[in-house]
Structures are given as structure tokens and as C-alpha cells.
């Protein structure tokens, strides 16, 4: 911590940036901020409360919370063990597995949605078996929306937790093992508390990504208010008929995202 602080001070006290940089940086800030200002400028403040209180918006908001938190739960349950294996076990093909698990981060979400249909759709690779054996079909269900969001968001959790596991001091785990703690106990009582900040950051990133998911959800899960129409889908549909409602919905997503970033700020961009 102290070395970081020292390094930071050294970095900021160095002589000013090249002149051109100031100009370009200002352009960058404008480029990123002006669209948000545009959104605020067109917000129907007077009717905002009424816009947001419509059943459709409340449904979408509630569904977005359910789906994104569900996706986070799936991601933690499956993603933390995966991150552990990627960080600690030198199994053959580890790099390939890592590349595969992070692929959804760069894949266009719509492509993810198509892939999900071909895998978990009613005629899909796994889906037809699920349908035959259990009568479970995922498309057009809330579970399907959660699946789509988890597909896209889980990699964010995995890479963040893996980085935390690699960065932590493993001597604590060794000490616990020496004292007779089993692997599970060591993980639970030593590793987990040590990587808690990474896990927290991973969860927040994963949640933010799940909350904003659009392409995979509309492709795989469809669009039905109350069942699969999450906030981003509601914004998209509203945009085509009712711009004011779309702006109001966008504003809600903007506020939530901003709150998340501010909550994370202390971790990634310490100001002290």
C-alpha cells in the first residue's frame, strides 16, 4: 500500500504532459461525456416520475434486478472454482480454457445469443435433451434470460478473481496447511478473505455487465414484458415509439452504472 502511494506521488509530481496531450485528452473527455449530457438535456424531468412509475417500467426494472442478480449467483457458483483452477492448477490446455472462458467478453453478444440458441434452444445440442428428459425449455423464460446474462458476464468475474488469486500471498495458505487445515477449510478461512476485494470487484463488474446485457438476451430469450424484457430491451423497444420513456429508462440505467463505478472507484483509482 505504501509503495503504491509513493509511486503514485512520484508519478503525479513529474513535469507536465506534452501540450498536445491536454487537447486530445479534453477531446476524449468531451467525446465520452457529451452523449451523457445529451441524455440529461433531453430528460423529461417534469414527467420523469410518471414515466418511471408505469407498470411496464417497473416490470422491466424488477426483472432486470432478478436476472442480473441471478446471473451473478450463477457466475459466482461456477466462476470462482474456475478462476481457482485457472490460477492454481497447471492442467494441460489451461491457456486454451482461459481463452475460451474469456471469449464472451469480446464476442458480439448477438453471436452469443445465436450460439446459446444452438446449444440450449429447444432443438439445440443440450436443449433438445433437456426438453426430452425433463420438459425444460430455456428460450422465452426468465431462466433463459439469466443464462444469457451469465454467459456474457461470467468472464468478468473469472478474470478478476483469477488475478486476485495470483496476486495474493500464498504463504498464508501454506501456513494454514501446515497447521492441519484441509483444502476446503483453507480456501474458506484463508484464501477467500484474502481475495475478498477481487471477488467484490469481480461481482460488481459481472453485475454491471449483466444489467446492461442486450444482444444475447433478446436473441436467446426473446422479448416479453415481465418474463424476458429487461431494462435494456425495454429501452430499445420504447425508443421506437416513445422517446421520452426510452430516455427515462436510460437515465435509470445510467444512474445505476454510475453508482457502481463510484463504489468501485476506491478500489481501482485510489485517490489517497
Amino acid at each position, binding site marked *: 500500500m505504501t509503495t503504491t502511494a509513493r509511486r503514485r506521488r512520484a508519478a503525479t509530481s513529474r513535469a507536465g504532459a506534452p501540450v498536445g496531450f491536454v487537447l486530445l485528452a479534453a477531446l476524449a473527455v468531451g467525446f465520452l461525456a457529451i452523449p451523457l449530457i445529451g441524455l440529461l438535456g433531453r430528460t423529461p424531468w417534469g414527467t420523469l416520475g410518471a414515466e418511471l412509475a408505469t407498470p411496464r417500467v417497473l416490470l422491466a426494472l424488477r426483472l432486470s434486478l432478478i436476472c442480473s442478480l441471478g446471473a451473478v449467483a450463477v457466475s459466482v457458483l461456477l466462476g470462482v472454482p474456475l478462476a481457482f483452477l485457472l490460477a492454481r492448477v497447471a492442467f494441460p490446455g489451461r491457456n486454451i480454457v482461459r481463452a475460451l472462458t474469456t471469449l464472451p467478453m*469480446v464476442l458480439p453478444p448477438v453471436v452469443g445469443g445465436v450460439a446459446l440458441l444452438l446449444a440450449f434452444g429447444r432443438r439445440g445440442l443440450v436443449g433438445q435433451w433437456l426438453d426430452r428428459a425433463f420438459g425444460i425449455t430455456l428460450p422465452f423464460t426468465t431462466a433463459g434470460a439469466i443464462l444469457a446474462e451469465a454467459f456474457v458476464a461470467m468472464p468478468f468475474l473469472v*478474470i478478476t478473481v483469477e488475478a486476485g488469486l*495470483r496476486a495474493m500471498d500464498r504463504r498464508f495458505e501454506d501456513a494454514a496447511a501446515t497447521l492441519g487445515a484441509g483444502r476446503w477449510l483453507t480456501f474458506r478461512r484463508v484464501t477467500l478473505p484474502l481475495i475478498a476485494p477481487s471477488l467484490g470487484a469481480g461481482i460488481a463488474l459481472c453485475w454491471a455487465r449483466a444489467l446492461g446485457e442486450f444482444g444475447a438476451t433478446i436473441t436467446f430469450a426473446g*422479448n416479453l414484458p415481465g418474463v424476458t424484457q429487461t431494462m435494456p430491451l425495454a429501452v430499445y423497444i420504447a425508443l*421506437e*415509439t416513445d422517446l421520452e420513456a426510452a430516455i427515462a429508462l436510460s437515465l435509470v440505467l445510467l444512474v445505476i452504472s454510475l453508482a457502481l463505478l463510484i463504489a468501485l472507484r476506491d478500489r481501482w483509482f485510489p485517490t489517497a
Partner: protein
Amino acid sequence: MLRSRIRLTAALAVAALVLAACGGRDDNSGGSSSAASPSEIKVFAAASLTAAFTKLGEDYSAANGGTKVTFNFAGSQALATQIQQAAPADVFASADITNMDKVKDLVNTPQNFASNLLAIVVEKGNPKDVKGLEDLAKPDLKVVLAAEEVPAGKYAKQILDEAGVSVTPVSQEDNVKAVVTKVSLGEADAGIVYVTDVSAGGNKIEGVDIPEEQNVVATYPIATVKASKAPDKAQAFMDLVLSAEGQQVLKEYGFLPPPTT
């Protein structure tokens, strides 16, 4: 060292997050950077016109010294919104009068150029034995409709309401082609689309007719956009659509002549 590594990972993750967030649905927004150049026109057309207009676009290019026609096919409601937001369109062809009316201040006088009927779309072989509208109410049938904002969805609702059939769709798709896709993938058992979508929908689907007395006639208007930078070329495209030659192409794709009023 270790800490900076975490931070790097986090920064990469944030970057990917932002990239991903920007990635959704950019297929509709293409072309905003280049205004209509003299050798190109942009035609915004209802999704149901995809096959027929693609053919007409080729005919137009061939007859007009290679002038390129770029299409933006989407739900008419989406196209109307894009035109309201000053998207660079030269021609707008809507699947209903309502969405043409929405942009009436931004376009020149529209003219009806085609009409269409609706049909039930089912999987090839009709495995669920759908015979008519009444069957769509069966609880074990997964029915997909276009959203009510979409012309095809509005027509479908109108047809179902008038027939007194109450259908709970499993999804309200954003355009009519997405309904066909969901049925051809086998995810949905049935949907209501245009007759022309059934004939253009490939070999995995088939249509079940909706009797004339239960059906509605969808009227397609076309107009040139006032803000067009190539008004002559836009008018020429509209003329082609309304010409005998254009009407013949539309007929080949299953469209009916515009209602005579």
C-alpha cells in the same frame, strides 16, 4: 507489482465492458458517417420487404448506371424513429400507414405501392397440427408474435381480437422476420406473419392460411424523404417501385397490389 497487475486486469475488464456495451445492435445505425452521395441512395424499408426490395435494388442499379442502393431493413416503427432522429434516408417504405404518418412532416407525399395479408407460420409439416387462429390459444403451443409497436404485431393483435382468440405469446419480437426465425429454429411452434414472409422464409417453415373474413389487409406506403441529398435518384427508385416492372417483382414475392381507394 502484483497490485498493478490486478489493476491492469481490472482496467482491461472495464475496457471490455465498455466495448461490449457499445456492441449491441449496431446493424441499424450503419452509415451515419457518410451522407447520401450522388452515386448512392439509402432506402429504409420494412423488414417484410427484404427479399422483394433487394431484387428491386439490383434492378435499379442495373438501370441507373450502377447507382448503389443501400437498404436498412427493420421494423417500420424503428425506421420511423430513425428518420425522426434525422437518419440519412432517401426513401422510406413502411408496412403500415401509421408509421408513415409519424414522419409525414419529413417526407414528400406518400403513395401506396403494395398490400399484404397475414398468415400463421408453423414448422414444416405442421407438427402441432395448427388449423386456424383458434388453435393458437392452446396452452401447450408456444406462439411468438411481433411486438405491438411493430406493424405485423399490430395487425396480428387486430386479427386475434376480432376473432375473439386470446393468445399469450412467449415473446414479442422486434420485427416480423425475427418471428419467422424463431419458428424456423424450432423455438416457437407458431407465429403470425405476412404471407410474403412465409414464401420467403425458407424450407423449414410453412404457412397456414387465415381466412379472408378473419384477415386484415396491410397497406404499404412509400415516400421520398425531404432531407434527401439525392432527391432525383430517390424519386427514380420510388417510380420504379410503382412502375409495372416494380409491381411485377412485388407480385413475384407474393405481394398484392395496393388497395384501390
